[in-house]
């Protein structure tokens, strides 16, 4: 009888899952499979029905393209530096907002503003503030006597990656702050009280209590942010279109696919992006698991 009930439950479960499974098949699995398939063909976007199978030629072509490797390097540099800064800054702001100080409610609301603003809008806002002639940042810097004439932040090939990282940090640190704050609130205040009574100095309390207890929260936040940073498209695209200094792997793949209409090569590039992201995801999840295993 209970087996029959269980079977009824299982059938109900799949019924409730039907819509989500249809959506996943339609907009995720099927397009993904088609991308993998096109990667082995020489199809063009204007008429995708005419093509022949070229096996691994497209994959090799992408690997032989110097621009691809520039894009890979840019993406990795961007990901490592921006996520590192976001984690540090996010941790600092979260600790600050966790302390009982007046105005922290206001600050917790304010911190959501950069997170909610569309990437395009944030990029345009900073582009205007960083404008070489009329931007407020250069006005402030020259007002303080730090520079003689405005710095061409977004036009200079050596500074533009810095600008992209800077804007990304501004936009996504709130996400880090929120996740770390949530982690902080899970730590029972009694531990700190005990440490306080024992006269343990603040930096040691932070290093030996707060940080280890925040490890899971920070780990999850870093995982999400890294995977998000690896697929970054809009920020660099709006700021610099296909400027090689900040071209990411997503921009490279889309360029091949849409601008050059090369459905086959573009799909192969997309497949490489997929493999890159999957590899990084596996490594990070592996590290997190090892951490947890070592902790117990």
């Amino acid at each position, binding site marked *: 009888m209970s087996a029959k009930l269980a079977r009824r*439950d*299982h059938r*109900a*479960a*799949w*019924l*409730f*899952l*039907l*819509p*989500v499974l249809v959506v996943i098949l*339609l*907009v*995720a699995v*099927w*397009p*993904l*499979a088609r991308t993998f398939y096109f990667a082995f063909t020489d199809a063009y976007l204007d008429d995708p029905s005419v093509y022949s199978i070229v096996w691994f030629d497209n994959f090799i072509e992408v690997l032989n393209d110097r621009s691809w490797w520039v894009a890979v390097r840019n993406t990795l540099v961007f990901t490592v530096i921006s996520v590192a800064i976001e984690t540090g800054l996010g941790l600092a*702001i979260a600790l*600050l907002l966790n302390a009982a*100080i007046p*105005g922290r409610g206001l*600050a917790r609301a*304010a911190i*959501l*503003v*950069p997170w*909610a*603003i*569309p990437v*395009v*809008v*944030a990029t*345009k*806002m900073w582009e*205007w503030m960083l*404008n070489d002639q*009329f931007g*407020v940042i250069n006005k402030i810097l020259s007002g303080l006597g730090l520079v003689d004439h405005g710095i061409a932040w977004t036009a200079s090939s050596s500074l533009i990656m810095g600008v992209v990282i800077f804007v990304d940090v*501004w936009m996504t640190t709130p996400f880090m702050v*929120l*996740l770390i704050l949530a982690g902080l609130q899970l730590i029972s205040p009694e531990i700190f009280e005990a440490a306080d009574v024992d*006269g343990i100095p603040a930096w040691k309390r932070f290093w030996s209590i707060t940080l280890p207890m925040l490890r899971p*929260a920070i780990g*999850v936040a870093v995982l999400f942010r890294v995977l998000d940073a*690896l*697929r970054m498209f*809009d920020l660099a695209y*709006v700021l610099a279109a296909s400027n090689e200094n900040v071209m990411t792997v*997503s921009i490279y*793949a*889309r360029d091949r*696919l*849409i601008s050059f209409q090369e*459905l086959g090569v573009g*799909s192969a590039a*997309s497949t490489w*992006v*997929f493999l890159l*992201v999957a590899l990084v995801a596996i490594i990070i999840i592996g590290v997190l698991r090892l951490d947890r295993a070592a902790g117990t």
Partner: protein
Amino acid sequence: MDTATLSRPLRKPSSFHRAKRRIVRGLQIFALLLVLVYTLFPYYWAFVSSTKQGAALYHSALVPALDFTYYRQLIDNPIFMGSLLNSAYVAVCTTFLSLVIGVSAAYALGRIEFPQRRAVLMIVLMISIFPQVVVLSGMFELINWFGLFNRPSALILTYLLSTVPFTTWILTTFIREFPRELEEAAIIDGCSHFRILTKILLPLMGPSLASTGILAFILAWNEFLFALTFTLTDENRTVPVAIGLIAGTSRYEYPFGQIMAASVTVTLPLIAVVLVFQRRIVAGLTAGAVKG
């Protein structure tokens, strides 16, 4: 002399502690002000710039000139208003569909025991993290098959890729938080799962649906890559793409005033929603990540 210092073992004179505490408090407030300026100034500056005309735009006066010419131009611009409507249509439809599909899936994943539950959850999570550019070729073909190319409706279909896994995941964690006792009586009475979901759980899920819905809405409202790729003509664009593609006649005539006015207009509803539903948004964001 307050009791807090007395109850502790006295190691140093209390005046030392009081001075130290005051310095720490002062530094904290200063840091808090820095955080506020850092997060809010760019948006404030966009507003200030959007109300300055002509040469005034290039002076860095910190107070807004309150000249709303750019905003009037935006309202009179049918293409910009059209893209606002497109954005609203796409974001509302995406949010609604993702919530319906998400609630249904979350009920199965959060309330019914079945062997493949963890596997389904893992698949949902994996799809929410893979890069959108990877499905671009296949999606292009799919949209052409449906005859949706260069139509805002195409975007609803493609946005489901990011929003559905996301709403499913968050709503599952929310549904699990409700006590089991809620439905026990109904289960004993032989109530169907559909009735348990619609009559018992759904009436309690208003706040959860609100936080999840807001997050899905923001995701859809802000999306850029698909919107850029699958719409071609100005009247079918969404706002982020419209703003992204505003260009001046030359590098020196870049219309920053208009762009800032458009940026403020597009972001104002989001900021209002965010400030009003602050707690719900934080609950939604952290439910997905911390407990998962």
